[in-house]
């Protein structure tokens, strides 16, 4: 078993034990897990494949709305709603990618903002489809095997499954051919093409996977809040937060985005109570620090530092 899977198993055990150790702090944990999953999913396109998106809130919103409207309007339970949301998100990502992947680097990033903002306005104004600005309440949910999906415990397990599933998928992909293809496209599209890789297809697949997973998290987020409003679900800063969580943690690493989520949500909790006003200031400061001093990401760089020192010690001992 490789090192990655040992860490993964450790995380899984931690996740399984947590609700018994800290039963009063489940909501924070759900937020951490959702951001961990989102940031990891974002990283598939943004980190591994180099397509920095600042529009991922659109996928969160899509997932949340599909699950909520499916339940409220059509009586479709969430376990059908979530896969449908993922499929629709993959479809959206396909159209979106087809449209914008001809743009390179920063231009692609700009176009993601534009697309997400247009989708936000659609969600607000087309009330026949989304319930409009007034929002949608999820007031009843089915109870599979007597499990109350409104309970924090149930939501915690859903969020945990989402986060661990996403991380596991990335861990697997990173060792597969698709992972190498993505990295090749990120480093240099022309050389990738010369090596027989189709960059557009690779980017499309990465973006579709990223969007679909983000939408699954969005669906869980919708159940967690049980009230959906376009201004909240399609919020530009939510896109920014997802991207920055991943980048601060460490782009293109298996665990960096998840670690970024623990760090930023945790810091946000502390800031929220002690430093009332400017809760996004920490994101600003951290991103500058990361960009200037830890270009690989805070957590990834720290791990590297520890690993180096260990290596140095072990060689000294010999």
């Amino acid at each position, binding site marked *: 078993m490789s090192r990655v899977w040992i860490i993964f198993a450790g995380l899984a055990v931690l996740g399984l034990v947590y609700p018994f150790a800290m039963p009063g702090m489940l909501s924070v944990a759900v937020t951490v897990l959702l951001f961990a999953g989102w940031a990891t999913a974002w990283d598939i396109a943004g980190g591994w494949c180099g397509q920095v998106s600042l529009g991922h809130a659109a996928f969160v919103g899509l997932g949340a709305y599909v699950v909520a409207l499916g339940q409220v309007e059509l009586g479709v339970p969430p376990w059908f709603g979530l896969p449908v949301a993922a499929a629709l998100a993959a479809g959206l990502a396909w159209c979106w990618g087809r449209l914008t992947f*001809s*743009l390179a680097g920063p*231009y692609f990033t700009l176009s993601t903002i*534009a697309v997400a903002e247009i989708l936000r306005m659609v969600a607000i104004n087309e009330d026949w489809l989304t319930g409009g600005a007034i929002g949608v309440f999820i007031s009843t949910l089915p109870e599979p095997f007597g499990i109350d999906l409104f309970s924090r415990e149930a939501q915690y397990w859903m969020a945990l499954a989402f986060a661990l599933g996403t991380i596991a998928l990335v861990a697997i992909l990173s060792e597969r051919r698709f992972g190498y293809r993505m990295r090749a496209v990120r480093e240099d599209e022309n050389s990738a093409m010369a090596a027989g890789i189709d960059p557009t297809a690779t980017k499309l697949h990465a973006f579709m996977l990223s969007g679909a997973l983000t939408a699954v998290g969005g669906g869980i987020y919708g159940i967690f809040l049980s009230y959906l409003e376009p201004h909240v679900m399609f919020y530009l800063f939510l896109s920014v937060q997802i991207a*920055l969580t991943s980048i601060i943690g460490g782009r293109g690493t298996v665990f960096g985005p998840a670690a970024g989520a623990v760090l930023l949500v945790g810091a946000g909790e502390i800031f929220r109570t002690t430093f009332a006003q400017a809760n996004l*200031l920490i994101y600003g400061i951290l991103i500058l620090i990361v*960009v200037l001093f830890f270009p690989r990401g805070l957590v990834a760089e720290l791990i590297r530092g520890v690993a180096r020192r260990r290596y140095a010690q072990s060689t000294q001992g010999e």
Partner: protein
Amino acid sequence: MDTTAFLQNVSNGFLIGGVYALIGIGLTLVFGVMRTINFAHGDFTVLGMYGAVAFNSAIGWDPYAALIVAVPAAFIGGVLIERFVLSRLVEAPPETTLLATLGLSLIIGNCLLLIWGPEPESVNVPYAATTLAVGSVRVSVVLLAAGLMTLAAITALWLFLSRTETGRAVKATASNRLGAELVGIDTRRIHSLVFGLGTSLAVIAGVALIPLLFANPTNLGPIFTLKAFVVTVLGGLGNVWAAIAGGLILGIVEVLGTAYLASEYRDAYGLIVFLAILLLRPEGLFGRTTKRA
């Protein structure tokens, strides 16, 4: 269609477009020379607004007079940011500078929030709602002043770029950085200068806008930044005159869309045109045909 109303809308579109051009011009310059996407551009505009508010409440002068202090301060601030942050990222992948300026944007906005609080601030000037009548069309004095400032700023910038030695060095750096260095131009200095100019122009836009609008610490910056991007992409890379055209097109599209299509999609009209231009004519409507990569 009511002709008077239509003419009124077109003239408003032009004037609003002039304001957009003023916001966009600084970004166009920075973009053209440094290939940097400055996410904090709109936040500098908001800084300019707060500067004018502070100036007005402290000394009681007309908010436009704040330009005397705000423009040099913005220039120095821009140069410092370029020196200590952006210049260290020249060799990094392009999205790195984008992230750095995104960080700056969050820092500026939230610091303003800490200092001023969340309530919108504005300056109440007696001429805020004054209009001039041109035939049957009313022209807002404040918008007209903003339009004149745009013209003045762009003319000054053009004179600087085409008539001075430093200006020509800026243009050389924009077209080929390596080449410029080979002929002895200190491109690091040029970058600092350009970023300082860019922030100054953003701040001028803020001061020009405050009698018309309101300053708000965190929400307004990204909106301005997005408008500036649209203007830049519409006009084309690094072409200062095209920024005027970009601004005017955006203004007209928004105003006519709002008046005759659906008002609630106002910001979408600009973004749709933005996407269309980006995809169909990536060099901008008036740019030279160069591949963007």
